[in-house]
């Protein structure tokens, strides 16, 4: 039987893995390192990829998750995002992004992971369930709760002006 190469279409895979890693660890060189490490491992173990178990992106994100959980030290993501948001002359869009990023960074690891997989890598609830080894409906419920907590955090934020501006303009 012919095996599909999981790394055939690289660019979108790199983007999705990087987005996931950046949601978990923050943007920057560390995220690049983890993404590179993920693809190195994927190359080494590309024979172990089984298309029956899921899409290549889900397989790669599983590797990225193990890379982060196993090797990279936890960073104070909330503090880093807050530091970068201090600048006053940022454009509205950037501020809005930073506000959301800061709110995500305050969530616990599990919620952050779910949000990273769902909105960073664009996985469906079913694909997330495959990556995390859980049931699809459990993931849907967990995602719903994570979004609720994020809304709460955003509501508590003092600096929600940019988001408010955008909401009002719609």
């Amino acid at each position, binding site marked *: 039987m012919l095996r599909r190469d999981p790394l055939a279409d690289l660019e979108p895979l*790199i*983007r999705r893995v990087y*987005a996931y890693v950046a949601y978990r660890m923050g943007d920057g060189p560390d995220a690049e390192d983890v993404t590179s490490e993920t693809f190195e491992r994927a190359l080494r173990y590309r024979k172990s990829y089984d298309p029956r178990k899921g899409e290549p992106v889900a397989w790669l994100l599983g590797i990225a998750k193990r890379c982060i959980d196993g090797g990279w030290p936890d960073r104070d993501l909330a503090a880093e995002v807050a530091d970068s948001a201090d600048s006053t002359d940022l454009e509205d869009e950037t501020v809005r992004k930073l506000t959301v990023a800061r709110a995500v960074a305050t969530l616990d690891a599990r919620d952050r992971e779910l949000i990273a997989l769902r909105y960073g890598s664009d996985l469906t609830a079913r694909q997330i369930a495959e990556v995390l080894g859980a049931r699809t409906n459990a993931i849907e419920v967990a995602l719903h709760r994570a979004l609720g907590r994020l809304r709460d955090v955003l509501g508590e934020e003092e600096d929600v002006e940019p988001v408010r501006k955008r909401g009002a303009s719609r």
Partner: protein
Amino acid sequence: MRCWRKRHEGLDLEAELRAGRSEPAPEFINRLEARVRHNGRSRAGSLRVAFVGALTAVMLIALASVGGVGYASSAARDAAVSVKRVVAPKDVITVLKRGSALDQYGKPKAKKVKKAKKGKGKKGVTKARKRPPFTG
């Protein structure tokens, strides 16, 4: 909190989260893509060479165990001789003409066949040599 929710009913948090995802730098994408492609190719190439080498060794061992190597070499030798015979036939003929009998007695003369006389006996039939009578 409720106020915030009321104020931002129009805000699509999911869209914000999607829009807020980080994009890798194009140089990083290019660099990583090139590295993955290069490493993948070289690994596949070395695997292919190793596979061919292993297959050759297995075939040689299998052939040697049933005397196939000697058979193959003799077949190759025969083939070489055949080719030589076709390419340089003169040499081959010379080799065939030589012999101890030829050296000792020289080239034999061609036998003359007597023609049957007209009107006597059957046409074209030569007389059989007379043998000494059978004496029991």
